């Protein structure tokens, strides 16, 4: 059996509000193995982002158990979570989240700079070529199309050679054609490199092409 990337038992996240407590993620049991392409689907407010944030070690968990890459993250705060996150997890956001003042190349160099990786420039150029943007390296984000921006973001997420990719609504701001292109890159990365990819999405097309689909409703898994 292949290595476990995610292992969750009774995983719960509660947001305490004045009037009520919201169980955004409610008692979830989940295992994701290395090499899987998983999509998390469900209606708005069902807890997809919340689950993804906990898996990405961006947010602390309220109760239950969560192991990421073999590290127990239960009860851990940001200062500990950052150590698990750095270099191990690649993030892709719905709105691309590139630094607007930096070019495509510099956006990737910045990530490598944070990770203290040497030979930033050559590696960054190679990464951009891999997502088909070798001709756009000196463009600022505002000089790129949405699809190109998301490809830069993917190149950035791959820069530190992470153990798995997390993408929250990666095609939410893209048209069908660009969405398909992103999906193709994901499939290629998953099939050729065996990279584990976890995507939260509303996009039925994207969702259905994943190896496994997890449906969430009101913070609970309704089918795996």
């Amino acid at each position: 059996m292949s290595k476990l990337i995610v292992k969750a038992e009774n995983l719960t996240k509660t947001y305490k509000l004045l009037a009520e407590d919201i169980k955004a993620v409610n008692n979830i049991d989940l295992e994701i193995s290395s090499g899987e392409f998983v999509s998390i689907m469900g209606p708005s407010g069902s807890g997809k982002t919340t689950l993804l944030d906990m898996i990405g070690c961006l947010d602390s968990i309220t109760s239950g158990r969560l192991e990421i890459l073999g590290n127990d993250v239960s009860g851990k705060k940001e200062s500990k979570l950052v150590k698990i996150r750095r270099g191990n997890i690649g993030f892709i956001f719905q709105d691309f989240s590139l630094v607007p003042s930096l070019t495509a190349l510099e956006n990737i160099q910045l990530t490598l700079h944070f990770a203290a990786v040497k030979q930033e420039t050559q590696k960054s150029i190679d990464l951009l070529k891999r997502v088909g943007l070798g001709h756009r390296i000196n463009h600022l984000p505002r000089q790129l199309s949405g699809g190109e921006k998301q490809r830069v973001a993917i190149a950035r997420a791959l820069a530190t050679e992470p153990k798995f990719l997390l993408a929250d609504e990666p095609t939410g701001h893209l048209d069908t054609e660009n969405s398909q292109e992103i999906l193709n890159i994901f499939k290629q990365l998953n099939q050729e490199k065996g990279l584990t990819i976890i995507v939260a999405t509303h996009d039925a097309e994207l969702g259905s092409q994943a190896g496994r689909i997890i449906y969430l409703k009101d913070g609970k898994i309704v089918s795996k």
Partner: protein
Amino acid sequence: MNIISIAYKNLKRKKIRSGLTIGGVAVAVAVLVSLLGFDKGYRQSLTSSIDKMGYQLLVTAKGCPYEAATMMLKGGGGLRYMEQDVYEKISSDSRIDKITPQLIATVYDPNKENGQGGFALYMGIADSYLTLKPWTKFKSGGWFSSETADEAIFGYEAAEFEQRLVGDKIFIPNINKVLTVVGIFERTGSQDDGTIFLPLKTTQTIFSLPDKLSGIGIKLKNLSDIAEFEESLYNEPSIQIISMSQVRGTILNLVSSAKVLANSIAVIAIFIAVIGVVNTILMSVFERTREIGVMKAIGASRMDIFKLIWTETILVCTFGGILGSILALLGSSVVEKIIKGVLPYAPSGQLVLIKPSLLLEALIGAIILGVVSGIYPAWRASSMIPVEAIRTGE
């Protein structure tokens, strides 16, 4: 990829806002540099002005010491007169190295100040005057032909101003006297430059001040004798004695009260600049909350974020420091004019002295300003929780 260039690019995103903040720092730095430059320059030119008088002590007729101090620097002695026998009495003292009598006379000249009328000032001097100021040279002509000659010597600027050459005749209004210009001094950088000199005896005669003097300049053989020497003259009823170091102190005192005010303005300017810097950087941190959250998500450590914001602040202040130094240099002549108009007494020479070392100090000061004001915004940015920061921007 270095952090300074990232920080610089971030500042460029809001050019106007960054520019205004840099401008604020620049103004504060410029004010401070000008004030410090003035302090140095004023002290220096006052000291050199006093040294160029050639004497350490001035004996004058009794009168208001402040008025006397100012008058004397403007040309030598309060306009009260003492008897010449005081000079004879003092000059025999063995502690004296050099001594010279002088007599200042004024005359109302209706043509002065472009026809508005004003007082023309003449200074009667004796041969010994030059021994007290051995550095004085003639630009043209030479010394009076005799002690009673109807002749005049012009200071450099006085000659320039009135466009006089050796051989010209000058007319002294009211007393209807014509004198011949026999010499013009080289520039000395002292009040002498603007003075018209006559022989002492001639002055006494034509202005009807027989046997009168307005001042006696004295240089002692030994500086340490000053106190003792002054004391020995206390019992002379009609005179007072002013030492140059005392004059210097008095003037610096007058100036220092004005400086307290100016310094507090500088402190306020710096305070406002710091608030401006902190405000600008904090604002940009809050605007970039989501971006900072994303940077943390993709691997930036607290230290990375802290350094980035800190660098931005230090950059703003460094640019401000450089700009402020340039402003201070360019504006020093303007500041000089303003100060000269305001001061009770302005010595000749450069009043605002801005040396490279002062500019370096100012720049270092500005950087320290950045280091200090950057701490809070940088700390705020670095302690953002990524998940909250990312959701804030949505």
